[in-house]
């Protein structure tokens, strides 16, 4: 009986350790910091090169698009801190002046580089959360 307990205990230990290790290693490059613009821009150099999800509001009249391309430049603010961002690709309908956005990407001295499909905009209108469903315009692209 005690041999069995030891065997089960050992197996459990090994399994837990293995899964824990795997989880730890995948979490390290799988996670992104979720930050507001002002939190990051008070000490931007600390965040250079790290994967971020940046939350803020699009500065009115800051969205620029290079003609005949899908290259965008715009600014995002929260609490008076502003960061400029660059993105190539198609933006959601709700991406416009004053829109509340979450950007995925990395920060560098030249600004915030948004990764492909990394622009998520919250809808200005109010949706009721629907049970078990996606209730906003654009879920994050897989």
């Amino acid at each position, binding site marked *: 009986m005690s041999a069995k307990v030891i065997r089960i205990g050992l197996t459990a230990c090994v399994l837990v350790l293995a899964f824990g290790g795997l989880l730890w290693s995948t979490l390290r490059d799988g996670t992104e910091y979720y930050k507001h613009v002002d939190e990051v821009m008070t000490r931007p150099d600390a965040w250079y090169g790290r994967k971020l999800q940046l939350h803020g509001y699009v500065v009115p009249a800051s969205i620029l698009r290079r003609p*005949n391309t899908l290259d965008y430049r715009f600014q995002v603010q929260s609490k008076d801190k502003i960061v400029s961002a660059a993105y190539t690709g198609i933006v959601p309908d709700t991406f416009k002046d004053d829109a509340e956005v979450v950007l995925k990407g990395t920060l560098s001295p030249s600004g915030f580089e948004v990764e492909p499909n990394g622009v998520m905009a919250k809808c*200005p209108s109010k949706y009721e959360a629907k049970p078990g469903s*996606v209730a906003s315009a654009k879920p994050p692209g897989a």
Partner: protein
Amino acid sequence: MASLGQFCLLAGFVVAAYAAAISVAGARRGSRRLIESGIGALYLTAALMTVASGVIIYAFVAQDFSIKYVQHTSDSVQPLFYKITSYWGGLDGSILFWVFLLSIFGATAVWINRERHRELIPYVVAVISVVEMFFLFLMIIHRNPFSTFLTDAPTEGRGLSPLLQNPYMVIHPPSLYTGFVGMTIPYAFGMAALITGHLDDSWLRAVRRWTMIGWLFLTFGLTLGMIWAYEELGWGGFWAWDPVENAGLLPWFTSTAFLHSVLVQERRSMLRVWNVALVIVTFFLTIFGTFMTRSGVVQSVHSFGEDRALAMMFTIFMIATLVFSFSLVVYRLPLLRSRHELDSWVSREAAFLANNWILLFAALFVLFATMFPTLSEAVTGERLTVGPPFFNRWMAPIGLALLFLTGIAPLMAWRKSTVANLREQFTWPVVTGVVTGVVLAAMGVRVWVSGLCFVLCAFVTATIVQEFVRGARVRQEGTGTDLLTAIVGLVGRSKRRYGGYIVHVGIVLAFLGFAGGGFKQEEQLLLKPGQQGTVGRFTVRLDSVQVTDDGQKQMITGHLTVFDGGKDTGHMYPAKWFFRRHEEEPTTEVAIRRGASEDLYIVMPAFDLKDQSASLHIVINPLVDWIWIGFGVMALGTGIALLPERVVSFAAAKLPAGAVPSAPIVLLIVLLLSGVVHAQHTESGQAVPIVSRSPLEREMQRSIICMCGTCGRQLLSECQCSRAVDMRAELSRLVNDDHKTREQIVQYYLAKYGSQEPLASPIDTGFNRLAWAVPYVLGAGGLVGVGLVAVRWSRRSGSNHESEPVQPTTLDPADRDIEARLDDELSDLD
């Protein structure tokens, strides 16, 4: 009307409380009359909830905008169909709908089982009633769907969002709910078995069918959600590991695990604690899923309604449920001891056990990753998020392991598989898998996860085909009929076994679709008329961008010509629709060309009418339609497994060979029809967007009400009167120009109006905290009261009528031997 609804809720609560108390009392006194009375009260609750549902539907149809909920989720221009379905379109109504479904399910389950499981019924009634009481309590105290505007009722509603006015969104929530609610029935029976100590396997038999029904609806709901996301949202995929989606997936994992482990208990009397635990966990996860969706605990880009009070009540209920259920399990541990040990790791029960562990691990993992942002914020103060790649990296191997077990488990023998029967069972499937692998490698498939998945799909399919063919051969020899008749007869004879295999076929098909995702190709292009772009073997040419108007909406349509490997294969028309009074929120109309091998999926997210250019998002989704087809097959299999014995014998007697049971066909048709119906959009009057610049401003808009005195204490963020506009401007000035903090703003309003009147909720200090506590104290007090009454009533007769102590069924060693032999003999008959 509203008062009638109110009355139904209150009466429902009282009657449910009565049902709970009287049933417990009846069971303890052994009084048939009291028990009957409890059952009657349960039926009465169902009747009351039906009336309440009738009232709210009537209010929607009659456009009674004096009821806040009706005003909130519908408007007068909506088609009748969507007016009715607005019933479950918002939070308050969805809770009512939940209780309604639960009461109907509960009443049906009790009605069916009232004779067969007489000893369990009173406690089943009690458990169901307590769950109903919780949700009724939520509505009465906090989220009343019948609450009205105190003064001037608005004359027009706000309407459902156009994104949600779509046939899938109409069926999807009720289907998911039915699945969730269906899981309450097994829980009630499990609890009843624990309380009474009747822990032989009879409660499982009552529960199996209900779990299957719940499982079917859960699967159906999840699939519909995927189809909706795929066709309506236009980002090219169908599952994004969003917290709301995950909430529905969690109980699916545990209920799937239960459906398998229940077989082990039936056959081998093992895993008894495990099964009870799975039933409890599944129920818990359905409640937890509801909690996660409604309370705003998990943040995501989606706008959840954040509701602290609701979160609090749910937390209390969930903790109470867990503590109560698992203490019962611990208390009954001696009766739950398993009668057999695992004989060998090469046996069917071991494979089932492995399947259970993996499913449970999957559930835990998804739970962990979904809660990770919240957890990391609580532990480190930093909000860390994980994205779909993280989920995919973990779920892909988990899924493959499950698929592998789907293949091997049914072929293993119970107790112990010998090398000989392993060889007999696995030669062909392994050969099939290996051949598939070689062919794929030769064809140059290099995505290894998908490749492995294809190999496993081939392997599993071969095992299932082998089972059918072998079974049919045996039957053919026995009855002398042709192969097809033999197969139908075979399925009819052991519906659960072969129904299960058919479900597995569906799983294989769905996995084919998932694996296809590994070969997904996508491209974002900016085209001018005449220009073309190439994705995979498709070339897309933009011919023109045209504007049309049908009075209700303006439609900007991209006219595309698609070439498949250089050959002109016709036109596709992705579009953007701008509804009147709704121009801020255009809807994206995806153009999808479906095919068995791949979907060509084109979205036109942006356009420029001046130079006729259009941005296109082109996605090639290989094999994706097989996921939906796979669900159809799963529904068919579950339907077969669910069919009552009588129907099958009747069909077998009357119908010619090849006749397929009708119920699953109906489901299949529903699914296919919904695939044909195009997403429909209707106009809805929605508020002018109220833009707030900062989180604090948003928060304050939600915690201060409009003070005009005529719009019924609407939140500042929602009210549309002119006073609210002024107040919002004032608030914006306070937040953005004067940089006041939350407290300063609250103080400002307190000083300005001289009372707490402008605050949406009382300040959370001192005496006011007491005000918050009152509902909880009342609720808890009521529950304790119900319990006390039950105990008291049952004690009165305790002296003259002692209920018989329950004898666990034990077997002497000789019986055990015989039972083991019987197991072996029966193993081929299922």
